[in-house]
């Protein structure tokens, strides 16, 4: 009897203590959360809702949206196709210079995007290292959709390579070996064992890469230029809109925000239902 009461008191005491801890934790966590969300909220508060409908349907906006969606989709696909072998090498093989390569891959993430744009221009531009020989063949990359995709790939692919390297390193090698012993070919092991096991991490890498490509601005405007209907993506339209008509720029920004949020939310919900993955 006494002991049960005692237990009860302890329990209440424990719960109070826990609640206090939780409140303290939230107090510590809130400043950053507010800092991150407040500017986004300010965007939404500031826009002219009457104008939203008009802006969404205007040809300039749909054009920029289409270009953004098509180029980021291609850039992300390329990052996955070309990034997976690179990540596989980095995850599975120890060799001299591995750490160096690993660090070098981080550079495009760290570089200011304008630097990335200039670097791409002096490499693939008409007088660039690779661009000059291409130009003699009649191929020019700058100011084209391909340049937009290259700029996005350059700044965003490292995110996928980093994630995929971590994901592939985390796969239990014994499971792969067991499948191989049962007669699975190298490709079958990779496609049926390795990728499914690394999938959650690979997928979060894909999402990060796409998100970074969608927001890409600096490298694009320098390497691909700005031509509505060809190379003007949403971030470029927003930047130039900021000078032309602040309200319209804000509306564009909110549209991009809503689309990004929608895609990320859909992906997360969809993924959770299927494999119970937390991103």
């Amino acid at each position, binding site marked *: 009897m006494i002991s049960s009461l005692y237990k009860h008191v302890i329990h209440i005491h424990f719960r109070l203590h826990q609640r206090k801890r939780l409140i303290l934790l939230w107090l510590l966590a809130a400043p950053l959360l507010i800092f991150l969300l407040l500017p986004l909220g300010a965007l939404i508060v500031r826009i002219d809702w009457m104008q939203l409908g008009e802006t969404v349907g205007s040809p300039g906006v749909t054009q920029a949206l289409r270009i953004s969606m098509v180029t980021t989709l291609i850039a992300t696909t390329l990052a996955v196709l070309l990034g997976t072998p690179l990540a596989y090498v980095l995850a599975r093989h120890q060799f001299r210079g591995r750490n160096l390569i690993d660090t070098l891959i981080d550079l495009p993430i760290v570089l200011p995007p304008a630097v990335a744009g200039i670097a791409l*221009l*002096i490499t693939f*531009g*008409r*007088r660039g290292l690779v661009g000059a020989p291409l130009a003699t063949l009649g191929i*020019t990359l*700058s*100011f084209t959709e391909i340049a937009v995709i290259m700029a996005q790939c350059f700044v965003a692919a490292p995110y996928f390579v980093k994630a995929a390297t971590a994901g592939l390193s985390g796969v239990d090698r014994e499971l792969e070996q067991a499948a191989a012993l049962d007669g699975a070919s190298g490709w079958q092991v990779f496609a049926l064992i390795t990728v499914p096991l690394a999938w959650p991490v690979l997928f979060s890498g894909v999402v990060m890469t796409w998100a970074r490509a969608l927001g890409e601005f600096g490298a694009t*405007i320098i390497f*691909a*230029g*700005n*031509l*509505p209907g060809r*190379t003007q993506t949403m971030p470029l339209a927003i*930047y*130039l809109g*900021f*000078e*032309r008509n*602040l309200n319209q720029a804000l509306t564009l920004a909110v549209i991009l925000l809503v689309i990004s949020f929608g895609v990320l939310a859909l992906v997360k919900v969809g993924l959770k239902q299927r494999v119970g993955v937390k991103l």
Partner: protein
Amino acid sequence: MQRAIRTLAGVMLCVVFTGCSRAPEATVPATVGAGATLRGQITVFAASSLSDAFEALGTAFMAAHPEAVVTFNFANSAQLAAQINEGAPADVFASANATQMRVAVEGGRLNDNDQRLFIRNNLVVITPYDNPAKVMELAELAQPGLRLILADPVAPIGQHSLDFLDQASAQPAFGADFRERVLANVVSYEDSARIVLAKIVLGEGDAAIVFTTDAAAEAEKVQSIPIPDELNVFANYLIAPVADSRNLALAEAFVAFARTAEGQAILADHGFLPLE
């Protein structure tokens, strides 16, 4: 008196909002009095086409006023006007056209009757030094397949370029569809004349339209094809102090300096057309 109050209010705002460290110099209202030393710091928001000329102007101004510090923020005039209207800490605004000056005046931080014409500029067609598309005359801007770079019309130089094309289209020698055929060649609308210039220096475009002063800044790296006066567009550059400047006396002194014989000579050295 009103000015001193304004200066003081500016300083207080500055302290309250930014905790700025240069408050002591800025509080000296004596800068208003005749013959007093001008001191403190101002930030001049200037059109990017002014960058080289204003760096030189600033150096000369600081030589004349050893206790003053002038820093610059160069961007296209539309961007600067937007920044000023959003409350950016500007003390002087130098715009490459009247439109953006008006935008800033309408924003409420600049007085309409404070703006002064201080220099003029005009346009020129440039090509990379090796002129890959062999552009020799203006009419060839319409030649199909030419990679033409223009500034976005949001920047004054971009609007001036369109005005030039309109004027040329009115001439039988070019044809009424000249503007349309030229614009079909545009591969990119850049943010400012300086970026247009950089891309021509890099050889990315075959031709571009920039200010004469931009071409002068990279004279050995680009070829210029002059535009005759009757087709050319003359850009009037306007300058004004920002009325809520923390150091209005210094801002006004800088504005005045740009219009002195010394200031005009420095600007003319950089290819600008002085006021008579």
